[in-house]
């Protein structure tokens, strides 16, 4: 070996020439060679003391024959701890170091072999993962392209179907409206007749003296006309019901009086106080609906008095419908007759168009969803070679003393107590979170359930080379910040060239 000062590596030996002056390696200063390793720091870069602890910034080189050479901080020279396996860092006799480089070397080689085997096995799987990942990406890409193409067609198809639908719906609508209008007119007619009949009957019932006129006294005997519910029907109330006529003949009654009393009217003998009130309320509810809806205004106190809020409005509306339906059922036994054949065929044509449109629309939506899924997949980062895509949509569990942890890759991480209890979300997929020069070493799942007095839970998943995909540990190094270790072939690196003996690189 080349003679060289303590703590200097072979490659640096030439800078330390006995007899010559020593120039600090940073070139700043020059000293007698005796200043090298004299346990006093002269050079600003510490290079005059490679073998002592004199310089704060020095490095000590241990050869570690049988193991691997190492540079240690010169502050670890002669500090009473054997840092180099060859023990050369502790030369002042304060402590006896055993040279265990051979054992360490052996262990290291064994470990290196183990790691190599693991790496090799893992790497084969990784290649497979890469292949599958790439294939998957290709497939998805192709699929996406196809879908995007077909999407254009589907959009066109949908537009066409929509046009057709609209085209078919116009005559259908006209025909239906015509039919319905005819029917409605008929219904109105029938209704008017029926009403007229009811008026006549009522007139006969009210006309107790049979003089074909109804006068105030005939009105006053009926409590249903007691508008202010004071127990008697006053002249005014009676007059009001008679629309200011002292007496009403049938025509006046039918046209003016009846429309106003028909809803409260009960055949004499069937009326009672309760019924009367119910009827009044019902009447109020239905008739008040129209002005109130039209004049609806949040700021209008008057309306607010009647209708506290939207829900009441809806209730009122609902009741209205029921009321109408009721009367319809009672009074209108007839149903609208079927559409005529011509209309029916128009409807059939429109139905067909509608169905086709719905189908086309669904197809388009389907495709759009698929495209979104594919884009999301392709937008995700599965590693430089898609080697991590294999993890997507898979979940991995790990159970320790207290909890079962679950990592669903690219989705979320959870924790569930073993003795029962609810699941806690520790984090949702966030991002790759390795160091800047090794981004794919870790993933972060963030914004999990909030912690009392602390941050939202989060998980950092550290990837390590292994032959299987599995969580190997879960811990909470800081309150509500979790750490998982995850073994996966995808983290394995290519085994080094076997011909090289430089095991340094492997570690």
């Amino acid at each position, binding site marked *: 070996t080349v003679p060289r000062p303590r703590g200097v590596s072979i490659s640096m030996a030439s800078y330390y020439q006995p007899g010559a002056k020593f120039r600090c390696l940073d070139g700043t200063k020059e000293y007698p060679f005796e200043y090298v390793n*004299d*346990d*006093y720091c*002269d050079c600003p870069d510490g290079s005059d003391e490679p073998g002592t*602890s*004199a310089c*704060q910034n020095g490095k000590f080189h241990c050869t570690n024959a049988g193991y691997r050479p190492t540079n240690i*901080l010169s*502050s*670890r020279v*002669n*500090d*009473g*701890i054997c840092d180099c396996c060859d023990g050369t860092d502790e030369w002042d006799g*304060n402590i006896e170091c055993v040279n265990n480089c051979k054992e360490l070397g052996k262990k290291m080689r064994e470990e290196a072999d183990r790691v190599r085997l693991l790496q090799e096995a893992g790497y084969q799987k990784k290649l497979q993962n890469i292949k599958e990942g790439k294939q998957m990406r290709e497939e998805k890409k192709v699929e996406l392209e196809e879908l995007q193409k077909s999407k254009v067609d589907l959009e066109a198809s949908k537009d066409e179907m929509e046009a057709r639908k609209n085209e078919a719906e116009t005559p259908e609508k006209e025909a239906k409206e015509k039919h319905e209008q005819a029917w409605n007119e008929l219904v109105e007619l029938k209704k008017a007749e029926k009403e007229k009949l009811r008026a006549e009957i009522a007139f006969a019932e009210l006309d107790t003296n049979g003089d074909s006129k109804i006068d105030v006294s005939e009105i006053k005997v009926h409590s249903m006309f007691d508008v202010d519910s004071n127990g008697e029907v006053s002249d005014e109330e009676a007059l009001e019901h008679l629309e200011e006529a002292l007496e009403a003949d049938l025509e006046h009654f039918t046209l003016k009086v009846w429309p106003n009393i028909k809803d409260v009217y009960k055949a004499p003998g069937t009326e009672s106080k309760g019924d009367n009130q119910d009827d009044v309320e019902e009447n109020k509810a239905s008739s008040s609906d129209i002005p109130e809806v039209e004049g609806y205004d949040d700021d209008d106190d008057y309306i607010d008095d009647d209708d506290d809020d939207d829900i009441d409005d809806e209730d009122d509306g609902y009741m209205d419908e029921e009321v109408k339906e009721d009367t319809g059922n009672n009074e209108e036994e007839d149903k609208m007759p079927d559409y005529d054949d011509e209309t029916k065929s128009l409807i059939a044509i429109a139905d067909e168009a509608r169905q086709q449109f719905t189908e086309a629309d669904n197809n388009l939506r389907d495709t759009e969803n698929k495209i979104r899924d594919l884009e999301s997949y392709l937008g995700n980062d599965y590693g430089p070679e898609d080697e991590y895509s294999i993890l997507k949509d898979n979940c991995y569990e790990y159970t320790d*003393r207290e909890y079962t942890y679950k990592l669903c890759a690219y989705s979320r991480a959870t924790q569930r107590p073993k003795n029962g209890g609810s699941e806690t979300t520790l984090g949702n997929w966030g991002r790759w979170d390795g160091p800047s020069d090794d981004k794919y070493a870790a993933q972060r799942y963030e914004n999990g359930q909030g*912690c009392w*007095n*602390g*941050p939202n839970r989060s998980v950092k998943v550290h990837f390590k080379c292994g032959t299987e995909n599995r969580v190997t540990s879960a*811990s*909470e*190094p*800081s*309150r509500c*910040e979790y750490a998982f270790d995850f073994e996966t072939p995808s983290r394995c690196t290519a085994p080094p060239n076997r011909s090289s003996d430089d095991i340094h690189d492997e570690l």
Partner: protein
Amino acid sequence: VSRENFKTCDQSGFCKRHRAMQPGSSPYVVLMDSIKIFESSTVELQILNTKNNVRLLLQVSALKDNTARVKINELDPIKKRYEIPVGDALVGEPKLQNMKVLERTDGSITLGFEDNKILITSKPFRIDFINNDEAVVSINTQGLLKFEHYRKKETPPAQEETADGQESDTNNEEQQEGGDEAGEENKEETPQEEEESGMWEETFKNFHDSKPFGPSSVGMDVSFPGFEHVYGIPQHADSFALKTTKSTDPYRLFNLDVFEYELYNPMALYGSIPVMMAHNEKRTVGIFWHNAAETWIDISSNTADKNFLSKMADLVNGGSNEIPQTDTHWMSESGVIDIFIMLGPSAHDVYYQYAQLTGTTNLPPLFGISYHQCRWNYNDQEDVKNVDANFDLYDIPYDVIWLDIEHTDGKRYFTWDGEKFPNSEEMINNVAAKGRKMVTIVDPHLKRDDNFAVYKEAKDLDHMVKNKDGNEYDGWCWPGSSSWPDFTNPEVRRWWATKFLLDNYKGSTPALFTWNDMNEPSVFNGPEITFHKDVIHMDGFENRDMHNLYGQYVLQATSEGLLLRSENKERPFVLSRAFFAGSQRYGAIWTGDNMGEWGHLKISLPMLLSINLAGVTFSGADVGGFFKNPDAELLTRWYQAGAFQPFFRAHAHIDTKRREPYIQPEENMKIIRQAIIARYSYLPLWYTLFYEGETKGIAPMRPLWVEYPADKNTFTMDDEYLLGTSLLVKPITEQGQTGTQVYFPGQNELWYDVETFKLYNGGQSVYVDAPLSKIPVFQRGGSIVPRKLRIRRSSSLMVHDPFTLIVCLDKKESAKGNLYVDDYHSFNYRRGEYLHREFTFDQNEFRSQSVDVHGNISTKEWIEKIIVVGLNKEPSKAVLNVKGKEPQILQWEYSSYDKELIIRKPGVNIATDFSIQLS
């Protein structure tokens, strides 16, 4: 803080009674004929309360070292009043010295010792301590003496309403306590004295204090004529110079666990030391109120009573100027009045006088004053291993890694969580292999679980604190239902100490040390989060009598346990949260659960100055703040401050983010690392200062006025301080600050920036740049500071390393410094195995010599470098002279710009006398 959890003076019956007293109407007179003199050093006189005819016994003694003692007890109490046993707060029986009766009249007596006079006046009773014809301390000048004698309860004719006044709204709770206090209820009064509120029972929130012995409080005023500033009575989160309490509550001394304590506030905290110093340009005096019961202290500014003082000969030096005076009013719930008056005249003298009474801080093992890494919690062995490894990876020194409560099996102290720490010995050994130590927490509350051996044993031995009914006291703390050993009992302390034997504390090793937390004690469901006052300790005394001592007893027992473990060979290390006068003898304390906020960083200075002034010199604040998450800037500044405080530990609450130095942003990490390295480089200075502290009682961390007593600018200064006499420290405690105004004391002093050697003249205030990387620290011209500049992983790996001596010259180009060296861990120094060296630089000659011929030890430590700063002329020759050796020429480098001379490698062993002649 939740203030409603803690009493105000108004809610504390005795405080309210004392505070309501009006000055100038004292009923107490001294019966001059009752005089007795003992051993020519103690005078006894009776004091009569003319309102109720109760007699008190006054004892006035002269003590060695310019100290006097005044004790007042009941002459004939119906029940023995509690007195703190000698040896507990007091280190031993104070040494008496001769005192003469100089003059006696009908109305007064004048005693003399050393150059002091003690004037006792009969009517009204007062005592004046006079030095050089100036009164410097006066007692009962305002007539606030109030001594509540023990009295019998008269059986009430019928049950009356429960407590009156502010307690009346708590009837419901009181009724839960059952009918017993119905019998105790006593509104009958002795004929002479009126009954006042809260005398026979008291209720706070839903806590009832049964007060079976009735009123027992004592109080008196102490005045400091001529003094505008008083200091001490820690622990409070307040300014160093104490404030007048005219518009606030009095300062309160009552050991309490105060959650998220408030700043600038006289509320009680975890520790209590009833010691006060008063300082003016001419002198420093102090008093020690030797009482461990709840104590309140009012402070007010006044002018001296010239009418009275002028009766004393030559009292006022001519002039009609008013003499400022600070009045203090001391009120304790129980015990006796026992005041030590320390007459200085210098601050160093008062430190020494107080140290003679309560002892000094034992020299800590070197690791104790190094950097400590703590967190609630390092979770398991793997976690400990990783933290340890990361410090090495980032090349940051640390000495001790701590385990908080989670390391135990269900908060059963002395046990381990078997899952997380299956092999604690191996873990400790791995840490110890790098010269490091570990600390585990051992709190005084014991989980009430018969399967927990320590609890079972304490229970079976009847060692527990009892409640008022005589049953084992049961309260809530970390483990849930808990009981507390009665540490006031020496037998219990001896029992506790054995728990630390390696055979008893399974999984411990000699490298494991101890942390006593929650020893106020903290009782989660107790009144004010502590013991009920009527719990019973040894000899039937109540917690009321000595509450403030309980925590110190825990600390003492623990410290004795570590001594027992090493057969008195190794210095113990124990950290305690509660403390009292004398705690310095047993371990370190810290300022409790502070917050990660700038205000808490800033307050750490006055808090520590105050605690240090009161003798507990091994003290620090949690670096980073316990609660909350400090940002990187605050954490960095806190490390810089902590690196120059006596006890240097980072700690964090379990809910905070991890914040170890190595996970900080790189810039901050590097700065924090530099701060820690600075701490390690100054360990020789710290160690020397702690040695001087053990021998002289002086604190390493001092206010400026201790060294510059006549400089009025320094009297209220508490944002900068001195380490010893050589370093001036002004940490940055404000967010975003990149510079600070530094006051450089001493008209003729020179101060040098320790990093750049930039020179500043004394007697002025200068703005100094302090970017984030800068800690404003300055070395005094005229001082020599020993440092070790080699960076090791822990302090014990530095023990053979060489010294660099930093010689900063004064205007006369001379300097002086000290270095103390021993084995850094054992008690062998007490057998003479140490070196105490003195370095001088004068007339171009550097000398190193022993200043203590009793000390000798062989060490490998040597001197690698001497840096002389402020040398105006480059020498032409440097010759090393060692006795018996040829003179040796040394090399040097000189910078005329910095006036800095670096003497290269004297290479002399530190034990060797030598000189270096420059010519």
